């Protein structure tokens, strides 16, 4: 982090304020209407009324998970883009989320999660870690835009079909319906158990990624100069790999794949960060929280009855951006 200048500071304050507003909106969104003052008093109430249960056990964990997962996705996107020096890099596009989902699916449907619940985030983490390493193996860490995207597409589709395979072979007849959850992501009906399950690895992952800011700034000048500025490239690589695996891995293990957050958010905030990858990290984290909260509110507003999947909304917002970035980078490739 070079200089948290006035512009970045102002935007951070604004984004944090927005998080509060959206959190309240998120708490007030659901099939049953509850007025705002009831919601706020419900947060502190000890009584076992159905309103309190709805707020404390259903909506609050959902809002908290939006915040945690949004932070992980926004930050991971910015960190990956900074590290690979490629604005198209995103956990969803390069296959990290897909492999995290595969890991979580294997662990969950094999019944391991019923034995030890921590197995679920561990599965997600392992999947994410394998994908990052696989990507490095397939494309190399400083390869061109196209190679990384191609490798990512290959990993994503492999992970997607393996996920579907595992779900089809799962002994439970509901498993096949749940392909939608894993591939499109949702935060519906999650509970505090999920919050507890992922909070520590997620915070550690986020912490690790936030420490890479200065190194990512240095990498702006290429690997040799970054190294000559005193940064250990191997250490940066492993910090990123472990950080992404922790953050994205555990996030996906409870929410399924929520795509494009890591793509859109850093892209929108880059001008505010004056293109510095370091300062973009905390900004993207805040931005990711906002986008995920907003998308999860939208999901509940637009769909009556059975909910739209969250990933559909983020993909609808995100894919035009992706196309725009592809067109923009096409001129670079030629």
């Amino acid at each position: 982090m070079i200089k948290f200048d006035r512009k970045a500071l102002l935007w951070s304050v604004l984004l944090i304020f927005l998080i509060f507003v959206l959190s309240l909106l998120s708490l007030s969104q659901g099939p049953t209407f509850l007025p705002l003052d009831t919601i706020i008093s419900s947060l502190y109430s000890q009584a076992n009324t159905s309103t309190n249960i709805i707020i404390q056990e259903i909506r609050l964990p959902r809002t908290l998970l939006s915040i945690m997962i949004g932070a992980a996705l926004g930050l991971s996107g910015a960190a990956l883009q900074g590290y690979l020096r490629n604005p198209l890099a995103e956990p969803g596009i390069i296959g990290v989320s897909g492999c995290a989902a595969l890991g979580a699916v294997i662990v969950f449907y094999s019944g391991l999660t019923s034995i030890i619940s921590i197995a679920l985030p561990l599965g997600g983490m392992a999947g994410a870690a394998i994908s990052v390493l696989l990507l490095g193996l397939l494309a190399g860490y400083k390869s061109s835009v196209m190679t990384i995207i191609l490798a990512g597409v290959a990993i994503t589709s492999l992970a997607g079909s393996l996920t579907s395979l595992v779900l089809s072979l799962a002994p439970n007849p509901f498993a096949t319906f749940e392909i939608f959850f894993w591939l499109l992501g949702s935060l519906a009906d999650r509970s505090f158990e999920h919050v507890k399950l992922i909070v520590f690895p997620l915070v550690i992952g986020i912490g690790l990624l936030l420490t890479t800011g200065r190194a990512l700034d240095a990498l702006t000048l290429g690997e040799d100069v970054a190294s000559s500025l005193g940064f250990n490239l191997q250490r940066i690589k492993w910090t990123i790999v472990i950080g992404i695996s922790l953050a994205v891995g555990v996030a996906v293990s409870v929410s399924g794949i929520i795509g494009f957050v890591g793509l859109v958010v850093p892209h929108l905030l880059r001008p505010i960060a004056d293109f510095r990858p370091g300062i973009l990290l905390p900004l993207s984290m805040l931005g990711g929280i906002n986008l995920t909260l907003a998308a999860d509110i939208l999901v509940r507003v637009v769909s009556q009855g059975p909910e739209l999947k969250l990933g559909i909304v983020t993909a609808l917002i995100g894919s035009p951006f992706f196309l725009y970035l592809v067109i923009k980078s096409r001129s670079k490739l030629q």
Partner: protein
Amino acid sequence: MRLPCNCNNILGLWLVFLVFIFSSNVYAYPKRIASINLCTDQLLFEIAAPNKIISITYLSLDPEISNHPKRAKKYRVNHGLAEEIVHLNPDLILAGKYSSLSATKILRKLGFEIAEFEPAVSIDGIYKNIERLSNLIGRPNIGRKLIQKIKHKFNPDNMENHAKKPTAVIFKARGFTLGKNSLANEVVLHSGLTNIAQDKIRGSFDYMPLEQLIALNPDLIITDAFNENSPSLSQNLLKHPALGKITQIGSRENHPNVAVVPARYWNCGNSFITHALAQLKNWQIKVNK
């Protein structure tokens, strides 16, 4: 004893006649019945002679959704595929009206006799299906007895009718709930409960958000223990802590607020519907205290 010659002749003619009648009877009713639908499997087990059945679906082996898993083991199972049925050469194939449609189409093209059954969405629907199947396979008496047995339990005079009707919501995996024009709804109503989901959902079934269930706060949540032993997110919804809180307990079973009615009693329309009714009546009495 020596009979007069013409008498002998008459007896002979009678024998010939009887044999003719008998053989024509046996010929008219199917001897090799295959079923490619779980619900027609279940009806077959209740009505048909065991030696007339040649194949049922693999689903009938599952004790959670089948009432006759042990009997099912004696038969060749199919997966609702035409190929599996063709070489068995059945003289009657039972199918659901809305399942295995392509198999049904092919089998009909190949000239097989197919009887398609509507899924029962009411007690009357069960009667119709039983009557039709028992006539088809030449066991109308058994069918009538079965219907009588159900009618006895579902007699309007036996209907629980208290001034205070406890509220209930059916809430299965993924929040699957049932409303108007469903078999379950009729059973719930007959047991003296009111299904308050029926005004909240659009069709006869829907997925209810957990939050809505908690807001409705029914006296009784009716669920099943379907596939609890293998993990699924759908089933995990029933383990959501919010549900635990609303019912005031950690484990759902045996608590007055949650009735666990096995899926096999009422996922298909057959005589086991009376078991579902009996259980719900007990719950109704407990909840109404």
